[in-house]
């Protein structure tokens, strides 16, 4: 299935990616190729088949809510490209 440049632009906004015109065209063609290959999936009869999200059947896994050591604030900020004691810094949001 062929997808349009508008589709690519819409998806790029959702994914927070800024693409050049060249990248948009490349991805338009390549994503169309992959989706074309995936066409057999849409054509497969799956009536009555339940989806598998996870290969191992799991119910909720619980543990006791006990206090235990965790990262210090300094460790939590250690990898931030822009932080000061007490918080991560970001450009203005509002």
């Amino acid at each position: 299935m062929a997808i349009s440049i508008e589709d690519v632009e819409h998806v790029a906004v959702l994914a927070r990616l800024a693409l050049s015109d060249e990248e948009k065209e490349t991805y338009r063609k390549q994503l169309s190729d992959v989706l074309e290959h995936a066409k057999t999936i849409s054509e497969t009869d799956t009536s009555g088949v339940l989806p598998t999200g996870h290969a191992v059947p799991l119910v909720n896994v619980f543990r006791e809510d006990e206090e235990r050591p965790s990262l210090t604030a300094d460790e939590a900020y250690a990898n931030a490209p822009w932080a000061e004691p007490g918080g991560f810094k970001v450009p203005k949001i509002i």
Partner: protein
Amino acid sequence: MDLHYIGAVDLARMIAAREVSAAEVTDALLSRIDAVEPAVKAFITTTPDEARETAKAVDDRIGAGEQSGPFAGVPIAIKDVLSTRGLRTTCGSKMLENYVPVYDATAVERVRSAGTVMLGKANMDEFAMGSSTENSYFGPTANPWDLDRVPGGSSGGSAAAVAAGEAPWALGSDTGGSIRQPASLCGIVGLKPTYGRVSRYGLVAFASSLDQVGPMARNVADCAALLGLIAGHDPCDSTSIEAGVPDYSKALQGDVKGMRVGVVKELSSEGISPGVLESFKAAVDKLQAAGLECDEVSLPSFSNGLSAYYLIAPAEASSNLARFDGVRYGYRPEGEFADIWEMYDRVRSEGFGKEVKRRIMLGTYALSAGYFDQYYGQAQKVRTLIVQDYGRAWDRFDVLVSPTSPSTAFKLGEKMDDPLTMYLSDICTIPVNLAGIPGMSVPCGLSDGLPVGFQIMGPPLSEEKLLTVAGALEREVGFEPRPPEGPLTGGKGGGA
């Protein structure tokens, strides 16, 4: 005898018996790395100082007659997707070029506490997305068997390091074949455990319902031993399985007579190169001669495996990689931003490489309004059909087999401009991840001088059966994972 081509189990025994010191072993491996890295480029980061210190500490403990871990002094390479405390973990990405984890992945913690000596972090496709290691921000790794060819991927650095004698064994990760396919292309042994057998804590997430950490080594015994070190429940990974860990090493001596082996028709006919098929079929004949009962089986849903995977994995990836926003960790460009949206756009567009962006785009599309049922939802139902096909096969067979990769190692650059062709490299390995079962690749011979891998698959938690068959195959085939020495050292370090 060259220390750098001795296996991990043998090295552990030699060090414990004081036939050789841990420092001598580590020095030998570091020299080997110096000699072959200019050609192979298997590592993103090497840690020679830390390695020498760890080795010395092992020797001190042994000298003092103190108890040390079961693999004290045995060197290891770690794929750069696993978090290492205090040591940068890049995931092959510009996004994490300077990221230094504040904790160890559980698998890393377990190999450390066994006494192993970490030599460094192995190269990989960015965020484990790829089949050739060419998608690494730090440049490609070469296949030790032919330096003009890819080592496979995404654990290509781990596979190449082990094949070139830079480490006796390594940790990799496998989401759609990323341990088994590079093991196949580099002529080594690699095992993707049952989903949940090994903790994913500290493994940088790609597709969470498919990712598994696993062992890579030059022989089946080492592969079994490394699996034994990392397997087991971990409270830090709620999807890890609460099941006891058997002594995997014992499985190698298991009796293979009468074991039922199903040759998967869909993975061993169309689309497989003639040289690979020939080597694979010869190996099946050898298993048959060794007393295993081999028969063909058809699993029709497998023809949809690749398509289902390339919708499910990118969908999960697009969600997992949303965390890279330039706030808490990772790349952030220089300069001012008009607002936070501009920052997000620039962080992600500049920090991610082509293939990662392609998969984020594909996954976001497959999950977007209007297409969800048609693509992601339908792929999840096809996943069920694949699980059911396997389930029926286990009534008739102990294990299933196929070639690991449809071809031997391909040329660097050959498939980079055609993603779909690259994705087809994973066609034989993907069904295993979709079903969450264990799968393994064992070398079964050479085709035109390049290694061919033999894939063994089994029901959930049947790693012992896989190892039993792999052990038999190793004995029957007698493959020696030793690439030609000359080109590796390029005349330096005693090469031909």
